[in-house]
């Protein structure tokens, strides 16, 4: 059956919202766009709603019941913290996610928590339907402290490359490491990954968000990564995928891997999602589909809570139901 993958949340019929049993959202930053989906939801239905919070340092998360539109206070979040690898599977099982229609708004959830939850939903706990929502920013705030070539104030500090819960892999021995960087505005993140993993210039592939969320943003992303392109000569291998489309990002990764296979170079593909969240989503699914020769890495940026985006753009709903059951998305229909 041919089904659409991506929907504009505003254009969805009330029946979509009414069909959702479980809604999971987060508020890692206090951006306005984190509340956009709930506003669109209005009073169309009242699903069981959970607030997900994740601490990058301690690898602890909390998943607390919160009526639609409300956010639990800091004390409740703190007291509900549990180790993600040791507990989340059991908790999702006990919440009855299996066989339900689930919608996860990733706009305000940290990437490592998104990745780990996807892993559980792909490998173990299978919802009847899985939808993921993402709200674009209207614009990002310009930096208040202009201390680098970056244009926007997105990251407060970096914890640095470290193990992603659920995705710990050893580097493939005797294989060439090719890194696919799904880049965003912060060029230094991509450069840091290449430096730390010690990737050779010829082995860098770039997925650029084009078209960007707004006209011209792809140039900012390209400019922000200029020193990466230059130092590693990475401008020779650039793929484009719409910044808001996880499926296009997936397809780009698929192409990159196919090229590697065609060139008969025995290689592992390291995925570094350092750009948009929809691209991160595509990368995580790709990593789950290709466990034997891919490695998902992440640089753990601590988001600037106060200085990120202003307003909101389009809210997208991605239908991952069929994707989570397949292992090859390339030839699947749009």
């Amino acid at each position: 059956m041919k089904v659409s993958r991506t929907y504009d949340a505003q254009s969805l019929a009330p029946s979509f919202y009414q069909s959702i049993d479980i809604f999971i959202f987060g508020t890692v930053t206090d951006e306005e766009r984190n509340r956009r989906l709930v506003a669109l939801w209005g009073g169309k239905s009242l699903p069981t709603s959970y607030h997900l919070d994740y601490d990058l340092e301690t690898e602890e998360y909390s998943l607390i019941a919160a009526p639609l539109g409300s956010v639990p206070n800091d004390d409740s979040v703190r007291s509900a913290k549990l180790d993600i690898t040791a507990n989340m599977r059991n908790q999702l099982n006990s919440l009855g996610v299996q066989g339900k229609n689930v919608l996860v708004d990733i706009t305000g959830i940290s990437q490592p928590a998104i990745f780990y939850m996807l892993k559980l939903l792909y490998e173990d706990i299978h919802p009847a339907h899985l939808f993921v929502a993402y709200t674009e920013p209207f614009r990002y705030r310009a930096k208040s402290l202009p201390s680098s070539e970056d244009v926007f104030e997105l990251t407060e500090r970096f914890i640095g490359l470290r193990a992603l819960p659920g995705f710990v892999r050893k580097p493939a021995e005797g294989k060439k490491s090719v890194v696919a960087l799904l880049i965003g505005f912060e060029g230094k993140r991509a450069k840091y990954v290449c430096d730390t993993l010690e990737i050779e210039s010829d082995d860098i592939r770039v997925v650029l968000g084009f078209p960007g969320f707004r006209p011209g943003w792809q140039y900012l992303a390209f400019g922000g990564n200029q020193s990466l392109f230059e130092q590693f000569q990475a401008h020779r291998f650039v793929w484009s995928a719409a910044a808001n489309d996880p499926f296009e990002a997936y397809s780009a990764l698929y192409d990159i891997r196919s090229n590697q296979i065609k060139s008969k170079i025995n290689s592992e593909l390291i995925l570094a999602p350092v750009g948009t969240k929809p691209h991160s989503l595509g990368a995580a699914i790709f990593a789950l589909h290709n466990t034997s020769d891919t490695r998902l890495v992440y640089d753990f940026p601590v988001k600037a809570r106060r200085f990120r985006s202003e307003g909101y753009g389009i809210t997208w709903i991605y239908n991952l139901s069929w994707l989570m059951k397949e292992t090859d998305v390339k030839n699947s229909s749009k």
Partner: protein
Amino acid sequence: MDNMGNKAFLNPFSINRAEHLGADLYRYFAGDNILGGLLSSKSLVLQGGRGSGKTMFFMYHAYESKKRQHMDSSTKGSRILEEEKILGIYFKAEPDLVTGFRKKGQEAEWWLDVFGHYFNVTICEAMCHIAADLKESKLTSFTDEAKICSSISRNFGFDGTGITTFKQFAENLEADEDEVLLYINNIDRQPKPFLSQPSRAMRRFATMLVNSIGIEGLVFHVFVDEFENLEFYQQQLINSLIKNPDRCIVFDVGVRKRGFKTYTTLAENEQISAWNDFRPFDLEEEISNGYSNFIQEICAKRLRTMPELSDYEEGDERLRIDSFLGSFDIKKEVDLIVSDRKTIPYIKELEMRLAKIIDPDERQRLYEAIAKNDDPLINRLTLVLLSQRKKADQILSELEKYQGGLDSKYKEWLHNYGLGVVFLLCRDYRQRKRYFGYDTFLQLSSGIPRYFIQLCFYAFEYASKDDNFAFGTDNKISIQVQDKAAYHLSVSKVDEIDTYPPVGHKLKRLVLILGRIFEQLHKRSSVSEPEINHFYIDFDAVSESAKEVLNSGLMWAVFQSRPLTKIKSKEQTRGLEYHLNHIYAPYFEISYRRKRRLDISIAEFNKLVDGNEADASAVAQKLGKVKLGGLMDLLQFEDMQAYQIDLWSSDESKQNL
């Protein structure tokens, strides 16, 4: 070929990491005379910042590299067992792997068993590969292979009877390794794997293999690289292995400065200490005496890989990097600074200073001496001397002697203030300071070979693009191109500081503020203290946050510490002075030499690190001795785009010509 049909330029400096040099890495290894003999029965702790050569050293001494190095072309076999007493195993503590052995609802003590087993498995697997390769290459027979495999494999819970070859053993260990990772990724549902006792199997395995090979003094060395990535308890495990040496297996460590989280071992109240338990070797410090020769050797090996230079014998002048870069020449730089402006920008200031000389005759003679002198460096120096309120008659008499070719204090003044005056000329003529010459590049690289290689990479790259440089036809890199390379690398190094975890953002703020302060101090008219580019701070007394920033700066080689050279006050009885890595000098337009120091008080330093906007800028203003603007101005990062635009449009501009 590029898309214009031109032959692509081969840059011998395009690879700046040991990991990328491939199987023939040994061909590029330099410094045998400095680094030879470091590996012994005592563990080695090799310290140094990024790019200082730790990985190169270890990978060069690893089995695979040594085997290739000793290939005998006539027999097509390797002479490794005849030439070497060390069988090296390289273990890199990958940050996205070793940090997987933490949290997940368990304490460090629990993780010790799991990681200890994983490490045991990994090292034994590497030993299996070496043993299998030695056997396959017919370098040794291993008649007792089945017995060794059977015996050691029981440590891992295998039924020893089924494992009779090293290859089989390795396959089983690899499966074990996968099982551990599967477990830590799914700790809530996977059964806990069988865990071997850390270190026991690898020690026994090493002993049995060495005995079987039967070569006196043969020993396995395990090189644990990027030790700083290990968790606290993981470092304790390695420290324990260092503390308890073994005849057949030695553990060596590659670590960044301040990369030890602990020196304790797993035993209670036990620590490892330098010289008693390990030999410390600081690459940045200890090779400083022979650094130039070391760099020459590294570069010559790379230059010789160019087809046009491959016929030159080792030691040939044409393989010397200094002949490509030339030397820094202060006169050339001054000529470049003053060349496109006929009027002298500091003339009014000079006239004003001369007007203050009371004796009209003296004033006139000095005026005439300056007027007939066409050396801008000397004239500008004379103005500096007047600003320093040196006596006019002394200046006049020394200047006349100097002009007459006689012994003069001007020689000493030039030595002390010469480069400082160049910075002033740059200010006066609104020019950027130029960085060029082999000796300049050497000092900019701050004892870190990778920085030197990167400087050369950009220099040759720009030379090819801008000057059509080609090996075989050209043997000089222009000043403009060298300067462009230095500036470019410097900008990119400053830019990346905030990606250095865990406090990169604070580190960058501190570097930008200090850099701006030093920049202003280089522009002071009197040059009473020229070339201030490092600072003293009492480390023990600063705030915890400032300590963290300084430590992190040392770990990432943003700062380099050296024992205090000149005690200026009673309080400075001990401690270190901190040098901003000289690679940042072109960005801030400051000196790359170790000259003068700025003493910063504890309160001031704490404010520079953590102070609010008003406090930090007030301190910067006080230290820089001029109004520097607010924090926003201090942190203004120069836009790279404007500078880089020519890189991306160079082809077009060439076509227009």
